[in-house]
């Protein structure tokens, strides 16, 4: 038990950088992200003895973060209409330079619903398998897939602004003589 707990505490501390990366992408706000990580670590630490030894620490911690984030969100509903899967994509403001691409990505992410953003980030950034995401968020695999599919498509539309047209196209253009 003691050795397990030691290993668990080391694994928890070692997960902090990944939790921070995910939280920043999820919230789009550094101080909010740091608060979320701090709360997650604190709660994880208190519940460490409940973590089943040998099970996936990462899925467990991201699950804790998910619950905390949802709680935060419920307590402070945003002053806007919540977006859901069927909300049409709002127009994207024009972008001036490629240097703003990172900010565009962060902005576009914030325009997805939380549910879509979570799934997209756990898969795209955290590189979890679809089954791991389903376990972390406690949702069926089919729901993971539909959120992923809708989220990616929405992000594609949002990012498909004039700035992206300057990038080389996937297939070479045909020259018309």
């Amino acid at each position, binding site marked *: 038990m003691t050795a397990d*707990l030691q290993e668990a505490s080391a694994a928890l501390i*070692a997960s902090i950088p990944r939790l921070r990366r995910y939280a920043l992408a999820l919230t789009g706000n550094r101080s909010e992200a740091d608060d979320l990580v701090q709360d997650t670590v604190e709660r994880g630490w208190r519940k460490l003895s409940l973590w089943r030894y040998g099970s996936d620490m990462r899925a467990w911690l991201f699950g804790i973060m998910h619950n905390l984030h949802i709680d935060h969100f419920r307590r402070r509903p945003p002053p806007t209409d919540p977006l859901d899967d069927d909300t049409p994509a709002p127009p994207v403001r024009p972008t001036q330079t490629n240097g703003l691409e990172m900010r565009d*990505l962060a902005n576009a992410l914030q325009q997805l619903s939380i549910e879509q953003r979570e799934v997209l980030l756990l898969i795209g950034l955290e590189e979890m398998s679809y089954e791991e995401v389903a376990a972390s968020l406690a949702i069926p695999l089919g729901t993971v897939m539909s959120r992923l599919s809708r989220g990616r498509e929405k992000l594609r539309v949002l990012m498909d602004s004039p700035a992206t047209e300057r990038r080389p196209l996937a297939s070479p253009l045909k020259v018309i003589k």
Partner: protein
Amino acid sequence: MISPISEYDLHAYVDNQLTTERRHEVESYLAERPEEMQRVQAYIAQNAALRTAYNPVLNEPVPRKMLPRAANDRRFWQHLAAGLLIAFVSGSGGWMLHVPSTPSTPSAALPSQLTVPDLAEQARSSLAHQAAIAHVVYSPEITRPVEIGAEQEDQLVTWLSKRLGSKINPPKLGKLGYELIGGRLLPGQSGPVAQFMYHNIAGQRLTVYVSTDQSQNKDTGFRFAQEGPVNVFYWIDGKFGYALSAGIDKGELARIATAVYQQLQKPG
């Protein structure tokens, strides 16, 4: 007979979650459908853009406030090591085991039976503590364990020496089976510290932590500390503090620490 390619397959293709066989099937499917191909490529680009934008966060030092409060208390690790996570000391001591992590608490407010910690001792062992935390945070990192890799050792030495204000060379541990992976700069108690990381053929990682803000402390010989799962050998030499951390057997770590110590004694 090939089963039809679904939306699931296209995403699993993007995320590298298909078997090689199915992957080939998806590729031939896409080859005939340029629009689907474009969509899949856009999704692949999304994943790449996310990693480019957010991976740098992995390299940021973890702020102390983000660590669990209990882990900031060095005594915590001793509890853990002794299997006493919850139990407090029995007998007459009261809450003697609680040592404030900041020594600024007015002493008048402390219960009379509190043992006032020896501040010098605390500062020395905080070297071991900080080194152990840095070890635990960075050594499991797979993609970015270090900021500058061993292949650019000259650059690493120049950079760390400049930032620490003293010539710092990573010890050579090849004869003991440990190769340098690289190093990184970290915040210490009152200034920058350097961390060098090594690994052996079995993938076991070891870190050497070098601080240059120990001038207020007396020199020490070799000291040993166990910080949770990490064993640490450390010593102070003038303004330099060194700590060697790894999750390996104390005897083996002592052997490596001796080699490091001897190398550092030799000029150049």
